[in-house]
């Protein structure tokens, strides 16, 4: 698990933990648990919401660490300005990753689903919670072990990303098609920049 600090944000949002889980066994059940947690009432609901208070991101659609961190930064920034388009800073990350303004679509594409085997788990929290505690909480909900983030390069599904971002028609992508590392670098820059400027996308 990796930790990032953002001292410019208020304490409750200034510590971010990110972990890549591979070979996740319970993604379908996890998705159902997140859905039911959002509608359960009373103390049980509170406890369930706390247990799944993460962004669960399908790792196939992430091109690089910078791509993910950009979405995290813009999500916390939106929260700090009272400008969230979704209910929580965690769901905002999924919203920002998707190129359209459709929240349901963002969660369906970028969130955890029955077919997800590689899941990136993100927690935005206060520095009072130690990294060990966060990691334990992650490992309690996700049935898998944490892999080094560098393994992301074996997971990224470039074809889907090109489709979602409508990049197949772009000349620069076609020209680089025979050189995958170059093509991937171009796509990574386009999607990272798209996430960064989503608030002014128009």
């Amino acid at each position: 698990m990796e930790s990032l600090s953002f001292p410019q944000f208020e304490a409750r949002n200034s510590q971010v933990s990110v972990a890549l889980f591979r070979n996740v066994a319970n993604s379908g059940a996890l998705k159902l648990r997140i859905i039911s947690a959002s509608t359960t009432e009373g103390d049980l609901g509170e406890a369930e919401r706390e247990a799944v208070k993460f962004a669960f991101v399908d790792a196939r659609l992430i091109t690089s660490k910078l791509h993910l961190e950009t979405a995290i930064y813009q999500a916390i920034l939106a929260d700090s300005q009272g400008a969230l388009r979704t209910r929580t800073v965690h769901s905002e990350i999924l919203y920002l990753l998707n190129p359209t303004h459709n929240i349901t679509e963002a969660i369906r594409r970028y969130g955890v689903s029955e077919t997800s085997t590689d899941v990136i788990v993100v927690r935005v929290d206060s520095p009072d919670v130690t990294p060990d505690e966060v990691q334990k909480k992650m490992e309690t909900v996700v049935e898998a072990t944490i892999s080094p983030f560098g393994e992301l390069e074996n997971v990224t599904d470039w074809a889907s990303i090109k489709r979602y971002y409508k990049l197949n028609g772009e000349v620069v992508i076609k020209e680089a098609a025979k050189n995958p590392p170059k093509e991937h670098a171009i796509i990574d820059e386009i999607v990272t920049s798209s996430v960064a400027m989503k608030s002014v996308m128009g």
Partner: protein
Amino acid sequence: MSSSTASARLLASSSLISQGAEAKVYKGTLTPGGVPIVLKYRFKKTYRHDSLDATLTKARVAGEARALLRCLRSGVNVPGIRMVDASEGILGIEWIEGNSVKHLLPSGAAEDVDGDEEVPTGLHAYTLEDYGLSADTLMGLIGVEIAKMHLADIIHGDLTTSNMMVRKASSQLVLIDFGLSYHSTLVEDKAVDLYVLERAFASTHPDSEPMFASVLSAYGKQVGKEWPALRRRLDEVRLRGRKRSMVG
């Protein structure tokens, strides 16, 4: 900007590298120890009415970000976008390690006293040879990059040799500062863009005619069939200047 916002604290932790009439430019990081980025802060203009100022600032940050993304999608070498806070007037972009073309060409940055240049890179002043480029090759890179941008119907609006950089790692030419850019398909706008660069060359670099000729020849090859019309229009613009006559 109130000092209590996240972006104000971000700027406070960054270092100022240049200041113009429209914006201040900082070097900073989003997270301690992270990769450096450029923060372009369009500060509040007290000579404008508050709400007009807010609207204009927001629109300009948005416009610049959109132009950059359009360039990226069209394969034009520009800095990537790293963060946007339109309500505070801040655009965070990729830090390009390298030098401006102005700095690399003869008698550009040498007597630069207007402070409109990047921070000194240390003891060693970089030259074209450090990048493995000849002046002529560099002119070709400039022509090709501007042509790619114009083919995407983006007009830069402020083409100068200070607004072009050469990346240290790849010797790639990168266009920067899209603060005055806009979208247009008109031959007129593209010709004026080229004319502005020609004037900038003439006023910044002595004996620049052959250099600018190489820029144009590379530009012409890259734009293809639109070139004859563009060249004719550039000749017209040269005769009358940047502004069209308002008469008639």
